[in-house]
């Protein structure tokens, strides 16, 4: 809540500065932390003369809370993950991009042009995508790591050395894959068994932490840790024995998207910024920095050659399918919230 109040307050302060300055030269971006290189923002400012202000958040839910608490009308664009795009749209927090408003819309890679979370890309453009799985320190455990058992039913060497992301969506989606059940299940027996399975698994876990998910692996505090693929690549560069797993049961796929927010104070500049990010050269700069893939065609020439062969973004042939986190209806979600509370009580 502290962060929420802080972000809201910053939002209000930003709103004041935004109205004070000329609407021509401003853009206010609401973005994840540690993601977009500053040089890219500087380049945008150099090209367009638009001054960019960036405010950051650490989870999709924190961003939603901040927008609902009154930050709407402050920011022009935000960068929600896949499922959060449909939630924001459902909450009426997004503006629609009319046909022809984005010059570079054709640059969107065909497979990302009509995603289920934003049909027809009505309000968003692709930003970066990747997967959420886990890493194992192969110096500690030499066995097969490509199974969700590592997290939920670990071998003795790894028990008590596991860090989970402190995120309900990521943990419960992985648990669903482990049990082979659908994500928004209404089957009571399956839900009960998930509840029981997690209670059991918790005994093997050392901690829940998202902010230092990479650091605990690099420092060796944890031998297993749930992590995003790009962070995983960075972790491996600092500790070579870490290996990113692609479980046969499947893994979580995510895509962050730049959305046009409703009541954006600088709508035209926001569209310019989106066009800027659809230029292969520019979005490739984000990929090179964050180590994720983009959803734009023609980036190959601008990418760090190492990215093409990253073990973290190239699943083995035996890997299960990658799945997006699904959005459940209110009654179903209530049960999952209860399971999460039971897990952490």
């Amino acid at each position, binding site marked *: 809540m502290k962060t929420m109040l802080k972000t809201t307050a910053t939002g209000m302060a930003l709103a004041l500065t935004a109205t004070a300055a000329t609407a021509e030269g401003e853009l206010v971006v609401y973005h994840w932390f540690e993601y977009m290189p500053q040089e890219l923002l500087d380049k945008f400012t150099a090209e367009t003369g638009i001054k960019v202000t960036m405010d950051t958040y650490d989870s999709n839910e924190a961003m*939603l809370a901040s927008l609902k608490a009154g930050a709407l009308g402050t920011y022009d664009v935000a960068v929600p993950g896949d499922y959060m795009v449909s939630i924001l749209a459902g909450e009426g927090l997004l503006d629609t991009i009319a046909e022809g408003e984005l010059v570079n819309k054709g640059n969107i890679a065909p497979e990302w042009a009509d995603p289920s979370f934003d049909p027809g890309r009505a309000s968003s453009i692709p930003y970066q995508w990747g997967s959420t799985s886990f890493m194992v320190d192969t110096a500690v455990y030499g066995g097969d790591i490509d199974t969700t058992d590592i997290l939920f039913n670990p071998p003795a060497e790894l028990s008590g050395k596991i860090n989970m992301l402190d995120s309900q969506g990521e943990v419960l989606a992985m648990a669903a894959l482990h049990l082979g059940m659908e994500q928004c299940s209404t089957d009571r027996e399956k839900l009960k068994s998930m509840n029981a399975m997690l209670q059991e698994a918790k005994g093997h876990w050392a*901690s829940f932490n998202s902010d230092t998910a990479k650091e605990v692996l690099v420092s060796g*505090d944890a031998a297993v840790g749930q992590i995003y693929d790009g962070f995983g690549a960075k972790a491996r560069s600092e500790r070579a024995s870490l290996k990113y797993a692609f479980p046969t049961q499947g893994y979580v796929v995510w895509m962050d998207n730049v959305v046009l927010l409703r009541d954006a104070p600088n709508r035209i500049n926001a569209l310019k910024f989106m066009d800027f990010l659809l230029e292969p050269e520019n979005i490739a700069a984000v990929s090179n920095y964050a180590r994720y893939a983009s959803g734009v065609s023609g980036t190959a020439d601008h990418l760090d050659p190492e990215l093409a062969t990253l073990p973290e973004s190239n699943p083995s042939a035996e890997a299960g399918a990658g799945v997006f986190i699904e959005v459940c209806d209110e009654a179903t979600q209530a049960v999952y919230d209860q399971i999460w509370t039971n897990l952490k*009580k």
Partner: protein
Amino acid sequence: MAAGAASGGSATTDTYKEARTWLLMPAWVVLLFLSLAPVAMMLIYSFLTKEFRGGVIWEFSFAAYDQFFCDRGLFGDEGCTFEWTYMTIFWRSIWQAGAATLLSLAIGFPTAYFIATRPENVRPLWVFLITIPYWVNLLIRTVSMKFLLRDKGPLNDFLMSIGLIDSPLHIINTNFAVQLGLFYSYLPFMVLPIYAAVERYNFSLSEAAADLYASKFTTLWRILLPAVKPGVIAGCILVFVPSLGSFLAPDLLGGAKNFMIGSLIEEQFKGNAGNWPFGAAASMILLSLVLVILLIFARQQAKAEKAEG
């Protein structure tokens, strides 16, 4: 206070009579807008209907309090049996905050005593030194603490290099790490009020006690402590209350495996649950709890003072 002075009829207060309303304005504004209004808003929100994914619907509802006190099973459709989940979380937080307060007192009291007994001209320097770490953001200090305490961190390296221990102490992700973090976060709040009290203490009283053959312990227990008691109580309250609602130390140092009150409330606003009325209700219950504890304290104080007088 102002009213009391005025009824005393002293001539000086009349000087301010006309301007009194205006002079009191800042105090009223602070009380009204920074203290009462947010609490009133929280109280109202706790009785509203939850909107899915954060926010409220303006319809009266007991649902938030029902959720706190009633266990209705995994699917929310069973009869009401008493809900222990949140009670356990509250108890755990109270216990952690209490332990952190005792730890702060154990270290803070001698520290304050030490500073207060230095020559007058160097005391400000010591106070200054105590506050230096607190110029840095709490989050950064807590993360640094995590790095110091971890199994392969500097603390364990040091202890092993001097041969005090053979294998690393496992401190991180334990309750003790949380208490250590809380203690470190709020130590100056313990030291400063006690220092202020000890500084005002007249040390000739201790000398008099010694002259009358009181042992050092008796002097401390029966002469010094009663005299600086208000400072000790203020310090304990200033450490206990923020520790109770803190979520940084439990999350980062305790491993976030178990909710504390602070993280439970945070989850309602920032997490998946998005249940604002429940977050508000839990805050109201916490606030009432703290209020009751402080009232009991205040009453006992008053009683004790009456008995002495």
